[in-house]
């Protein structure tokens, strides 16, 4: 047995795609089957734990819908095997996957993909690198068919909330506190963010300067934009 043989057999074994007996064909081991089987079990257990810590309310919704969290995680990880060094990035594709998975599992609660995306986006905003253009890294505009902020109601009601109207949110890191926050966004919000990012507002997005100034002040008060933010390059003054 070469080391390459071992790794070739180890990958499907660890991902639960082959059995202990397949691994044992490589050579002798004094370990009983149950000890070897610990490893794929540990990998799967850890993936379920990591995602439960990353998106705890998504897990609560899954279980309130009568679905098995561990089984759902197994199906997700089979489609999106974890990569890279960052543990939370195990959940990077969860929202899109949940949206696609609904065709196979109609019991998934309405809005669960929005909740997963909102939670993931808040993590990205909270941990975004400090260098580089701030809006590119710590401010995200998201449109949701159901407002994910209703997730908090689960904590008091113990039920999955029903669907709401669609909402567009700015998910961002408040640099004063370091916390991830969200506020509603509209066309003017997007215009102000674009202008702050140095994008020229052309005739296609020709908004009155006082409207832009009012929205910029709101975003400054919310901590989306710094208080010393200059008027955007594309704004009329």
């Amino acid at each position, binding site marked *: 047995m070469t080391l390459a043989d*071992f*790794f070739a057999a180890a990958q499907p074994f660890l991902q639960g795609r082959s059995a202990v007996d397949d691994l044992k064909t490589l*050579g002798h081991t004094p*370990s009983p089957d149950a000890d070897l089987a610990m*490893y794929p079990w540990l990998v799967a257990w850890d993936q379920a734990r990591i995602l439960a810590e990353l998106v705890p309310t998504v897990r609560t919704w899954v279980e309130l819908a009568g679905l098995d969290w561990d089984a759902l995680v197994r199906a997700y990880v089979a489609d999106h095997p974890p*990569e890279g060094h960052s*543990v939370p990035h*195990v959940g990077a594709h969860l929202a899109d996957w949940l949206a696609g998975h609904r065709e196979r599992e109609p019991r998934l609660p309405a809005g669960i993909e929005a909740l997963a995306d909102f939670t993931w986006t808040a993590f990205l905003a909270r*941990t975004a*690198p400090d260098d580089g253009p701030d809006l590119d890294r710590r401010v995200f505009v998201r449109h949701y068919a159901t407002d994910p902020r209703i997730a908090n109601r689960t904590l008091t009601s113990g039920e999955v909330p029903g669907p709401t109207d669609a909402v567009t949110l700015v998910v961002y890191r408040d640099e004063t506190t370091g916390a991830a926050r969200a506020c509603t966004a509209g066309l003017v919000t997007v215009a102000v963010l674009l202008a702050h990012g140095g994008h020229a507002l052309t005739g296609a997005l020709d908004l009155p300067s006082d409207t832009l100034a009012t929205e910029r002040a709101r975003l400054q008060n919310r901590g989306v934009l710094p208080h010393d933010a200059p008027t955007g390059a594309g704004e009329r003054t």
Partner: protein
Amino acid sequence: MSAPTGVGIGLRPGFAEPLLAGDRSVDFLEIVPENFVGRGGLDRRLLMRCADRWPILAHGVSVSLGGPDPLDVAWLAALKDLLDALEVPFYTDHLCFTSVGGFQSHELLPLPECDEAVAHVAARIREVRDRLDRPVAVENIAQYAVMPGSTLGREAFVHAVCEAADCGLLLDVNNVYVNARNGGTDPSADLLRLPLHRAVQLHVAGHEIHHGRVLDTHGAPVSDAVIELARLALHHVPGRVPVLLERDTHLPPVGEVLDEADDLRTALFPARARGAA
């Protein structure tokens, strides 16, 4: 960048703010760099403030020193930047593999204990050392099975790798105990077969028993047996090495972890603890 001594704790989520706000004594803090590399925000700011007050050690979990995939050199470069910023004197990771074929398991997986694996992992440890521009030490892992193709034995494998890589040993005392209990061997004898002369740091942690198997959970107070084993280790390691109290699951408030660290300091370094009182 000299290495700290004494007893430290892991900088776990939620620990930094109460640590910075208080006046409790701790000899050093250890971070998992994967929680900070490439990230900013409040956690990063708090880490830098902690680094102003306490020495920082870094203990990685994902370099996959024994793995088959090419080392992630871009990530190692970002890791080096972090270690430089924190003035970390040496870097530690695990003698294992964590990823294979691009699949990141986020588990510490044992290698076949064979000569080919010794050469393979030693070469990668040397490359990591060169890329990080600082000494590297490897941790003996908790191991629940012996992989096929193993010929050397657990402690001999650790010994051979450390010699071939000319690297340090992060001696995890709890892992020695867990492996011995599960394998029915004598923990003291197993400990003394490790390359203790290369030890640069000790890890001490609690374990839990599930279905008759001892698991390295870092989720319970350190047992008396592990403290005894740590005392034995300290008689055989060179000089005064830092000792980390690991706590990762069932995480109590930082004050309780500091209490346990104080108890551990008294147990392992009674003269120093008396001097500090």
